[in-house]
């Protein structure tokens, strides 16, 4: 059964690795869909909590897959999920680095980069939207996300300051929230 779960993790995260154009945030929507709705590894509640932990912890946000693997199948799951997410894209990057040196000034390379950028941007917004929906946090959740985005666009704040600030504010208002 464990073995089955581990292959399941590999089958979910290898394709996502190739699709993570522009970084982890672009596969967030699909990751949530696969782990919660398709495979039932996590509840929506688990996913939101794990997402929060992965963003508050050091290291890249994509380490969320390590936690998903850990939750599904312990150390082996963590290892399998991490390798499945990091190895395929890493091979692409290593290959591209070699090509990149050879065709440094090529026009086609710049055009492909320009064409992929809007896809990545759309995926980032899709990921934020999908997780905000999954949270069922109501107006407060949307307001918090909008406020954090707005603050960061106005000033170059350290991300940790915003995450810590949100934690402090939520901790403070919790006693006043309807149960």
């Amino acid at each position, binding site marked *: 059964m464990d073995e089955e779960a581990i292959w399941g993790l590999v089958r979910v995260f290898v*394709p996502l690795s190739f*699709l993570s154009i522009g*970084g982890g*945030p672009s596969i*967030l*929507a699909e990751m949530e869909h696969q782990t919660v709705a398709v495979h039932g590894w996590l509840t929506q509640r688990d996913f*939101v*909590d794990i*997402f*929060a*932990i992965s*963003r*508050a*912890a*050091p*290291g890249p946000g994509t380490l969320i897959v*390590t936690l998903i693997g*850990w939750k599904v199948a312990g150390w082996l799951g963590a290892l399998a999920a*991490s390798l499945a997410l*990091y190895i395929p*894209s*890493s091979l692409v*990057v*290593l290959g591209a*680095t*070699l090509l990149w*040196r050879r065709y440094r000034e090529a026009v086609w390379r710049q*055009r*492909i980069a*320009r064409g*992929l*950028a*809007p*896809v*990545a*941007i*759309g*995926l980032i*917004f*899709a*990921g*934020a*939207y*999908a*997780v905000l929906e999954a949270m069922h*946090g109501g107006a407060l*959740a949307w307001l918090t*996300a*909008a406020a*954090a*985005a707005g603050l960061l*666009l106005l000033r170059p704040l*350290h*991300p940790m300051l*915003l*995450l810590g600030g949100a*934690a402090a*504010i939520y*901790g403070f208002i*919790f006693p006043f929230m309807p149960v």
Partner: protein
Amino acid sequence: MGQQALRPAAVPLREIALVFSRIGISSFGGGLVAWIYREAVERRRWLPDREFLSGLALSQVLPGANMVNLALYLGMQLRGGWGALAAVLGLLALPILVIIAMFEIYARLRGLAAAHFILDGIATAALGLNIATGVKAMRRSTDAFAVAIALAVFLAVGVLRWPMLAAVLGLAPVSIALAWRAPHG
């Protein structure tokens, strides 16, 4: 593997691993490109400014976490395949242990409603950071087609919940074709 030392003497693999593990463990909240730049270009002079920036662009466009990709690129430039491995392992090893420890602490607090609520706060703020990243990237691209493509991808994947693979395979070629025809660039 094409190995080109950009500094006269080859950078030791241990130095690469150590520098990236320090960056990894102190990268709370993400977005530490500025710090990698300071270490790699300004302090250690591993490679010239332009090489760093083109690698940064590459790591943002290709699949994979941007920081991981940048580590791979820099490691590769310094010491080929082994350098890339040293950089990535250095970057990820400690954070993996820390994040699992944090999860275990959370698993013990799970029963507390307040813990969930505070994590909601952190998650929403983190989603706000993602949104800000998207908005900043949007501002940088001035093409009209870019806005339309970004909106189409958002609707397809985020709102309509179409399978991401199909949406990307369908829309990415259209986007690249439009970028090809766009006058400037």
